Structure formats: C-alpha cells, structure tokens
C-alpha cells in the first residue's frame, strides 16, 4: 500500500473523529473530559508509524524520489492527485510531526472550550502542511497551500489572545494575496507548457521541462516568490508575522513558527530554484539583499521588544533571513545550510514558543518587564527556556549554528560583504536571546511570585527529545544534509521515478 495519501488523509480523519468526540453529548457518554486530545494523540502516533514505514521503505537502489502516488482528479484540465516524496519533504514532515506531538504534550490538553474543534483544526492544518510538502501537481499544491490557511485562521481568531481577530485577518489577507500571484504564475507556466507541447498538465515534472524565455521565466518565478516570501517571511511582507505569532494560542504559534514558515522555504527550494534555475540565479543578488535585510531588521527589532512572544517572532524573521540567503546563494552548501537551518529553527523556535506559552499561562502576562526570576520558581521550565534561547542564538554544537555557519560560508564565496553583514545579525541575535534569558529566568524576581507548577516529567521528556535532536543536528549534521537534499525534477530522475512507481 502506498503510504503517501494516508499521510495526508489520516490527520483529517483523526481530526474529524476528535471533533465528534468533543461534542458535549459524546463527551458525556465517553466520561473522559479530554477525549479529543487522546484521539488526536492516537492519530499522530499512527501518522508517525505510517511515516516510519514510508521512511524505511526507501528502496535499496538509492533513488532521489522515494515514493510516488498518482490518481486522476480533473482529467479534462490535466489535474491529478500527484504526491511524491523526496528527502526534503520527508525531513520536513518529520519536523512537522515532532512539533505537533510536542504541542499536544505541552499545550493543547488544557484547551477546554470546544476542545474537539480545536484539535480538528490543529490536525487539519497539519494535513494541509503535509499536503503541500508532498504535492507535485501544481494545482494540488495550491489547493493545500490555501487549505491550510483556513484552520489556522480559525485557530487564531477564536482561541487567540486579546487582539486575535485583527491578527488573524491580517495573516489570511497577506498569505492569500501572495497566493493569488502564485496562482497566476502556476497558470502562466501551465499555459506556456500547453503552447509548447499541446498538453494541458499541472505535473511538476512535466512543467519543469518547459522551455521559457528569460523574461517569462523571471516573471513566473517572481509570482512564486511573492507567495513564498510572504510565508517565509521576507522583510517588506513580514508585517503579518509578529501579530499572528503573538496573538495565536500557544499550539498555533508553534505550528506557525515551526512548520508554516517552512512551507515558504520549501516552496522556494522546490519551485523557485528547481523550476526556474536561471531566473533564480539572476534574481539571487536581490534575494540575498532581502535576506540580509531580514536578518538585520528582524534582529534589531527583536532587541527592543518587551513582549516575549513578539521577541521570538522577530527573531524568527531574522533566522528565516538566513534561509533565504542560503537558498539563493546558488551553491549546494548554502542549500544544505538553509535546510539544516529550517529544521533547527523549527525545533528551537517551536520549543521556545512552547516555553513562552507555558510562561504566559502561568504568569498571565507576556511582558518581560513583569516576569523575572523564574529560575528559582521553575527550574525545569527555565532550563528548557535557556537551552532553546541559547540554541537560537547560534551556540556552536547545536543545530542552528550548523545551519547558519554553512549559509555564511556559502555566502562568503559569493559576496564577502553580505556574509559580514549577516554575521552582524548573529551578534544581534546574541543580544536579544541573552536579554530574554536574563530578564525572564535569571534576573532577580520582580514582584511576589506565587509558587507555580513546573513542567512535569512527561513534558520535560517531550522537550528533551527536541533538545536531543538539536544537539545531534549540531554535532553531526552530515547525515541530515545528505538525507534531506532536495531532488531534481529533471527527466533523468523522472524516468527513474516512474520505474519505481510501477
């Protein structure tokens, strides 16, 4: 059996069951107040098993594309359900699952108001994200791209904090605006292919071979770039991010920072660079400029935030600048660095949001000036917080360092001044991360601090797993780099892919 459709459908189905279990009548019948949570957990465990199968089924003769699934959908328009998995998508799906599991362990069990719907939306977002990572039909990709917005919008708008509705609307509008430009690009590419070949298809592999004039390929690439730049985010279109991350409930913040931003990076690798290599190369100087701007601007703003979540959110913008820099550095090393950075940022920032959410839940504020001296009261939580803050400032030996170092090295070959500027961002990131550590965990405690529940052992175990991943990623990134390399869409591999599918 092919595991790919199951990977997408399972979370939706599990979410539906969780929703039903959360209905008040059902909950009364089940006599478990957290039935939706349990069902969501079971779904994720099942999903992990399916993914494990998919990972281990990797055929002996190493092929870049590991699994393939295809089924006609709208044959008259050449649209099909095509799912393909390569190392990059596999790595990112693993990241999504790990973060989702951590979310369930740390943040969602206490969601009492409409817990069933909450878990359904969480899993639906996950399904949409996994779908975008797998889809190799451009229509299907766009379908999932849009589909994951809706549950996230509802999650922010209903379960978020004080200014949630404005933030949710902003998030949706920005992403959708970029998405529509991408739609036009997708259609433009399909039509160019139709004119050249007379075949109407949305197949990624077929479209990759479309002959394009330089101007057209540049235009089409920019359309894709617009959508991914909003998601990543790249600096002029990052405005939605701090609001959305700050206002979202903890679990949604984790998904946003940990996974949704990665869909932007994934799209840039899979579509911008792979489909339009020449245009991407010509666009690279500008993209790298935007990347450096993001690194410096995000870090600079992060230094002057008082809101914990906002600080982390601006830090994310800065880190994603490295991803952009790496992707467009036009070297394999930069690409590997960008991927490692995506994985490490997903883990460390996701975990930081979990910690920040737990703090907020206990202290009822996100204002760093009013929180202080948590180390004494909650040593476990604080140590976790310190670990992830240090990880995100790029401490050698942890994943983020490996990613940033590779990106900087690759950038240095292309343009030393850019690399120098980007390393200034590292200094700034040390400032904001240490400021976070100092004022929350280490500073003398401000007001009277009620004794508060620390993280229980189970939650520490979940965080411990994330820490272990970060350490491995930092100390020995080579297997991850070879494992998660994106595969090329070009005919030689496509032929092999078809052979494997049969």
């Amino acid at each position, binding site marked *: 059996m092919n595991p790919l459709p199951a990977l997408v459908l399972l979370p939706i189905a599990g979410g539906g069951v969780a929703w039903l279990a959360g209905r008040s009548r059902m909950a009364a019948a089940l006599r478990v107040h957290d039935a939706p949570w349990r069902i969501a957990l079971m779904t994720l465990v099942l999903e992990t098993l399916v993914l494990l199968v998919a990972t281990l089924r990797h055929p002996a003769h190493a092929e870049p594309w590991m699994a393939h699934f295809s089924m*006609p*959908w*709208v*044959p*008259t*328009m050449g649209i099909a359900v095509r799912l393909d998995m390569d190392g990059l998508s596999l790595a990112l799906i693993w990241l999504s699952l790990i973060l989702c599991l951590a979310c369930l362990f740390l943040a969602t069990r206490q969601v009492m108001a409409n817990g069933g719907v909450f878990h359904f939306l969480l899993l639906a977002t996950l399904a949409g994200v996994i779908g975008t990572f797998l889809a190799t039909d451009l*229509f299907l990709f*766009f*379908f999932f791209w*849009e*589909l994951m*917005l*809706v549950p996230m*919008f*509802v999650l922010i*708008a*209903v379960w978020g904090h004080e200014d949630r*509705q404005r933030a*949710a*609307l902003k998030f*949706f*509008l920005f992403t*959708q*605006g970029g998405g*529509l*430009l991408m*739609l*036009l690009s997708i*259609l*433009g590419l*399909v*039509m160019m292919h*139709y004119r050249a070949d007379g075949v*109407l298809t949305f197949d990624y592999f077929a479209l990759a071979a479309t002959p394009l004039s330089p101007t057209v390929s540049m235009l089409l690439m920019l359309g894709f770039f617009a959508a991914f730049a909003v998601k990543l985010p790249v600096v002029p279109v990052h405005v939605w991010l701090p609001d959305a991350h700050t206002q979202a409930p903890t679990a949604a913040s984790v998904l946003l920072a940990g996974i949704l931003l990665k869909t932007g990076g994934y799209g840039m690798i899979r579509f911008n660079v792979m489909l339009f290599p020449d245009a991407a190369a010509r666009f690279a100087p500008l993209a790298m400029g935007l990347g450096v701007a993001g690194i410096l601007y995000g870090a600079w703003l992060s230094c002057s935030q008082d809101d914990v979540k906002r600080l982390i959110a601006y830090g994310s913008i800065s880190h994603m600048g490295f991803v952009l820099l790496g992707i467009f550095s036009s070297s394999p090393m930069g690409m590997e660095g960008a991927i490692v950075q995506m994985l490490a940022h997903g883990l460390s920032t996701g975990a930081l949001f979990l910690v920040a959410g737990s703090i907020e839940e206990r202290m009822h504020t996100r204002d760093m000036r009013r929180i202080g001296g948590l180390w004494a009261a909650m040593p476990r939580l604080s140590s976790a917080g310190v670990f992830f803050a240090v990880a995100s400032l790029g401490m050698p030996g942890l994943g983020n360092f490996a990613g940033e170092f590779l990106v900087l090295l690759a950038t240095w070959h292309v343009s030393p001044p850019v690399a120098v500027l980007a390393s200034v961002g590292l200094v700034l990131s040390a400032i904001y991360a240490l400021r976070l550590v100092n004022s929350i965990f280490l500073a003398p405690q401000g007001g009277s601090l009620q004794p508060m529940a620390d993280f229980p052992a189970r939650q520490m175990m979940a965080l411990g797993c994330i820490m272990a991943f970060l350490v491995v990623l930092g100390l020995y990134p080579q297997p991850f780099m070879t494992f998660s390399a994106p595969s090329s869409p070009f005919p030689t591999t496509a032929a092999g892919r078809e052979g494997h599918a049969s």
Partner: protein
Amino acid sequence: MTLHDTFLPSPLLVLSAGIMLMLAGMAWRRSVVRGLSIGLVTELVALGMVTHHTGTVPDGSMGLFIQDHWTAFTAMLVLFSSACILLMSWRDLTDDGARPAEEYPLLLLLGTLGATAMVFSASYVPFFLGLEIVGISLMGLVAFNHRHFMRGCEAAMKYLILSGLSSAVLLFGMGLAYALTGSLRFAPPIPADGMPPAMAMVATVMILVGMFFKLSVVPFHMWLPDVMEGAPLPVAAFIAVVSKIAIFSTFVRYFGTGSLPPALNGMLYAVIILTILGGNLLALRQSSLTRLMACSSIAHVGYLLIAFLSPGPLQPGVITVYLVAYTVSTLGVFAVMCACSPSLSPNGAAITQWGGLFFTRPFMATAMSLMLLSLAGIPPGIGFFAKFGVAATGVARQRDLLLGALVTGSIMGLYYYLNIIRVMMKAPATPATKTAWRMEPELTTLVIVLTMIVVIGGLFPARIIHPFLPG
C-alpha cells in the same frame, strides 16, 4: 401555422400549466400551503423535463425557441434555484395565517416562467416577453415585504423605474437591429448592403447596455443593492441568482462565445474592470449583509465576464462551473440568512447582529462560513475551483489587466467575507441565551443539501465540468 409546427420546450408548458392551476385554486379557495406545494411540484416537474419538448424542431434558425445543452443547463439552474427560493419563503408565508398570500408563489412561478422563456429564446420576441414577465413579477415580489411595507414599496418603485428604463433602451436597440436586418433572430445585427454600419454598432451597444442594466454591471449597478435590501430575503436571492442567470444565459447566446466586434471588446474590458473593482469597493463599506451580498454579486458577474471574454478550450467548462458555484453559494448564504432571520432584526440586515452565531447555532455558522469561503474562492468550496478556472482562461488569453483586477478584487472580497466570519466568531457578550429555535426542517435540509453540493463539488469538480456553451 398548425399545432404540428409549433416548437415548445416542455418546461414552459409545465410552468404555464402550474400557473393556471394555481390561479384556478385561488379562485376556489385561498390557501398558501397549497399554492406553495403546487409551485414546488411544478418546478420539480419542469426540472425533470428540461430536455423535452413538444412539436417538431424547426430547421434552420427560424424558430422562436431553441433547445440544446446550454438551455438545458441554465434552465436547470434557474428551476433549481427557484425551487430553493420557494423553500426559503415557506416559513414566512405560512406564519402569516391571517393573510394568506398566495400571490407570492404565483408571482414567483411567473417570474420563473419568464426566466425560463428567456433561457430558451432564439428570437427577440420570447426574449423580451420573458424579460418583461420577470420584471413585472419581480416588482410585485419586491413589494411583498410584510414587515417593512414602505421600504418594500420604495424598492419596488426603484426597480420599476430602472427596469422600465433599461427595457426601453433594450427595445430601442432591438428595433434598430430589426430595421437593419429585417429579422428577429437573436444575434448581433450585421447590416445589409446600403445600411450605415454605425447603426449596427448603435443597435448592439443599446442591447448591450440594456442587458448590462439587468445584469447590474458597473456603471449600471446602482439599483441592485437598494432593491435587494428592500425586498424580502428570498426575493433578494431571486434577483441575485435567477434573473442574473437568465440574463447571462441570453447574453452568451446573443453574443456567442466567439470574438466580439473589436470596438466592443475594449468597452467590455473597461466594464469588467469597473465591475470587479466597483462591486468589491462598494461591498467593503456595507454594514448590511443583504447589501453586501448585492455588491458581491456585482463583482461575481465581473469575474464571470472575464471567462466570457477569454474564449479557449477551457472556457465552456469554466463558465459552467462558475455558474454552478455562484448559484449554489449565493443560495446557501441566503438560505442561512433566512434560517437565522427571525432571531435577527428585520431581514437579518446588520452584519453586527451576526455576532456569536458560532456559539448559538454552530451548524448554521459553519455552513455560512463554507458558503462565504466558497464565494471568496478558498478551498474546499467549489468557488475555489471556479475562480481558479476563471484565472486559467484569463491567463490562457493573456488578459493581464483583467487578471490584475481579478487578484485585487479577490483580496478585497476575501476581506469582507472573512469579516463576516470574524463577526460570527466573536464570543457573545452575554452568555448564550437559549432562544427557542423552531424546527425548520425545510430550511435545514436546504442548507445541508447546498453545503454538500458546495463541498463535494469543490473536492471533485471533474463531474461538473461540461462544455455546455452554445456552438
């Protein structure tokens, strides 16, 4: 002409028979439920007979009526929508037992007859007759607002005057066309020898303007929000769906799907851009849901015209899907509005009154959100595929300006649709007061059916794509 020579599509016969039956019933004894039932049965029977006809098919293009895939498809849409609208009105009419208002289903059936006649017409005569039947019955229906009699009357007067004006322009254009060609055949006039070519242009433009009035395309859109706001909710749905589909169907029949005269092309370009931007900008500022739906329907006609203006292999299927998506989603929104309106103030007008619907009536709120998302073009609604198709036809013909308008309009549209969803998600200030909901089986069923069409059509659109356009 003997009976043998007449060619009549069956739905027209069925509808006329239903109207006669209803009139006879009224003369005997008045009963709203009977009137509504007759209306519903008539429409369902007509729906089943859209591909049937009596008499022989005329050879050539001489007949009054025509019957092909396109008529079958649009007539089905018209009859289906009309049946839905009857169901939506059921509760309000039967509630008012003191004054049995059988005229309402009668007028509704009459309006449906007019719309169906337009759909089947292959000549100016049945087209104009149908148009006027729709116009006159709508005037009565719009004024049928029991709760706000004055407002209904005002809206009806507005509709009467503007509809009369546009009919006059249309009629003048037809007259010119007849003078030029000496034929009532339903096609843009091609001047005979010795006739000034400018006259053909004038005739076409006048007919176009008349149709644009009825389609409420910017700059002829002013009447639509006012009339829809004054009308009872189901009638507003009738204006937004049935009459627009009938007009659009004849519009496509008239101008064909080939290329328009180049001068008209430029005009249509401008009109489409104005319509999309104008409709969406107007909708941004509305505080009443009915008016907002009116403005959004203006914008949707603009999107539809993009597909009309971009002939290509994709076009027929895309127009089909778009019409289905627009019809079903709009009907769905109005059905939910009808279901929730008793608890809201008159006509469920102000958007702010929808606050907290997710907490008081979660099912209705979910259905409403799905419909709105479908209108906004977000998956999993069928509207997503429809908008995707429109963009595809536009890209295929490189309509860059129109695509720009489409993107801008869609983003604006997303804002006001999401805004409604946002309002519905607002936690109610007071803890949810359990209002006694009356069981409304017909409305609930209707909403369920429409929601299923929207979602299933959105997930498996392949079944709906059929090239139905007239050749």
